[in-house]
């Protein structure tokens, strides 16, 4: 990580433009990110799956949904990753399997971040009984494992991608709110907040226009960390049957469909490759989060 402190020295302002302080800071940050091995490794992994989520079945070697007679063939020349119990090509299904997770997890994260930031700003800014009451409820909810809350809510609401987004977003809201609240508590005593108050600004303006821009760093880090957890949660809930339904080539769904085959003592390729796919995506997201954190925390 050495050599990052003198990053500013290497950046020349564009000709004819006098960059503002914020712009320089942003460019400096980007420069640090690009030089962070952790960030680049994560970006490559995530980029690979984003690519496949976009192109989907159009570029896969076989049709991921096509049922054939060639069932449960081991990995080999014809099918690099083998075929599943319906004779579908596992490699094609793994490559096409990113799309649902890639839709649900980011949207759920976005929902949780927006809700949690709002809630955190309110509780942190007002303190007093509003904060106390909301914090009690948050503590009570967080006494339960995330997945228990999610399963109860999903049974109540019915399972689909939309409810999955809403439920995960809702569960994330209090967790994000905690982080944002802590950041707000540090900011609210600073002079610029007092100045805004003395100018007669109203509370929503101070919260969203004054405090929020100053705590964007921790919120961005929280968002990437949450995205990792969102993929985690989507994978688990889809495995339990609450997400996208068969015959979609989703990774967790492939595992759920095929794991009982392992009792036979073979056919491991039907579940191993989707498992590795989930692992690479999540590790990628976490590497990005790690890289961001290192750059934003300094």
């Amino acid at each position, binding site marked *: 990580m050495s050599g990052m402190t003198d990053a500013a020295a290497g950046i020349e302002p564009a000709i004819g433009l006098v960059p503002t302080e914020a712009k320089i800071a942003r460019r400096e940050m980007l420069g640090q990110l690009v030089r962070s091995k952790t960030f680049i490794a994560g970006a490559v992994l995530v980029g690979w799956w984003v690519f496949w989520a976009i192109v989907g079945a159009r570029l896969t070697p076989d049709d991921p949904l096509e049922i054939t007679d060639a069932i449960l063939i081991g990995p080999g020349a014809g099918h690099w990753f083998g075929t599943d119990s319906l004779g579908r090509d596992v490699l094609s299904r793994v490559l096409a399997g990113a799309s649902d997770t890639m839709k649900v997890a980011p949207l759920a994260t976005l929902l949780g971040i927006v809700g949690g930031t709002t809630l955190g700003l309110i509780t942190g800014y007002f303190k007093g009984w509003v904060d106390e009451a909301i914090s*009690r409820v948050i503590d009570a909810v967080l006494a*339960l494992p995330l*997945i228990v809350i999610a399963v109860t809510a999903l049974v109540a609401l019915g399972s689909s991608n939309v409810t999955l987004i809403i439920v995960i977003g809702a569960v994330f809201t209090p967790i994000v709110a905690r982080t944002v609240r802590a950041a707000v508590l540090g900011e609210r005593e600073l002079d610029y907040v007092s100045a805004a108050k003395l100018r007669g600004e109203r509370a929503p303006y101070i919260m969203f226009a004054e405090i929020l821009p100053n705590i964007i760093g921790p919120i961005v880090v929280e968002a990437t960390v949450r995205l990792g957890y969102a993929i985690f949660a989507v994978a688990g809930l889809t*495995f339990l049957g609450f997400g996208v339904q068969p015959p979609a080539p989703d990774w967790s769904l492939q595992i759920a469909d095929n794991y009982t085959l392992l009792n036979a003592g073979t056919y491991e390729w039907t579940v191993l490759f989707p498992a590795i796919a989930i*692992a690479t995506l999540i590790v990628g997201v976490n590497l990005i989060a790690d890289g961001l954190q290192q750059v934003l925390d300094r």
Partner: protein
Amino acid sequence: MSGRRASAAARRPGWRTVIARFLLNRLALSIITLLLLSVIVFAASQLLPGDVGRNVLGPFASPEDVAKFNHEHGVDRPVWTQYWDWISHFVRGDLGTSLQHNVPVGELLGPSLVNSLKLAAVAFVLVVPLSLLGGTVAALRRNRVTDRVITVTGLSLTAIPEFVTAIVLIVVFGVVLGWLPVSAAAPEGAGVFTQVEYLLLPSFALVAVLFGYIARITRAGVIEAIDADYTRTAYLKGLTPGRVVRRHVLRNSLLPTIAVVATQVGYLIGGLLVIEKLFNYNGIGQRIYIAAQAKDFTLLQSGVLIVGIVYLVATFVADLLFSLLNPRIRYGAAE
């Protein structure tokens, strides 16, 4: 320093009172949290769609039978009466009757809870020493290759869903090597060792999820202790490195680790729905999952509340340990 220590010692008779007050405070907070939780759980299970009697009796039951069922099970009464009825019986140990199985809820949840505790215990026994060791070694070899390997492996494993890790473990140890059973449910009447053997694979998956998390906290605690003045003093006094680490560093760095381990107990007892399904294991998570799907809300709400209680008890025990082990709370809280 010595003056301060003497004055703290003079106040020493008060430290029990201080701890007692601290713990009473935490206890009161836990009870409030629990009450709130019970209301939330009850409200959530009321949200489950559909008529209870209709769900249980099926689409072909006559409307009269459905009304009779609802009346017998008291689900046609006002919501607050039902809540009071549930919670007042719950605190007396009467969890009601399962709507789906028509047997006392306690009979269903009891064995599942025991199963969950067994799995959690095995995972716990494996993960705590392992992550303490890993975290300490990483801290002592800070920023070197060993540290990077432990930290990066730990964090990656933590982020990967437990059933994904479990699949890889099953394939390696269960299928390719054939060393361990691929299910977690031991045969009826199996001895302790056989039961533990069946629980090893799911436990490994849980170890993978928890190791990075606990080790990271331990590492941070150890580093803080290494950098502290008292550690330097201990070295300068001429103590051997081993003695410094054991007596000064580890003792201080264990505190945050205890706190973070406690926060994972709720997950270990109630949050393993996915692992339990994958290994076909009848734990409390599996019970909650099935109850939620069957809309068996007497079973569901008591099961969920028990998971909440386990979590709150665990955090309370952690607070207790924390205050007993931490001289700063013992002495400092009085100031």
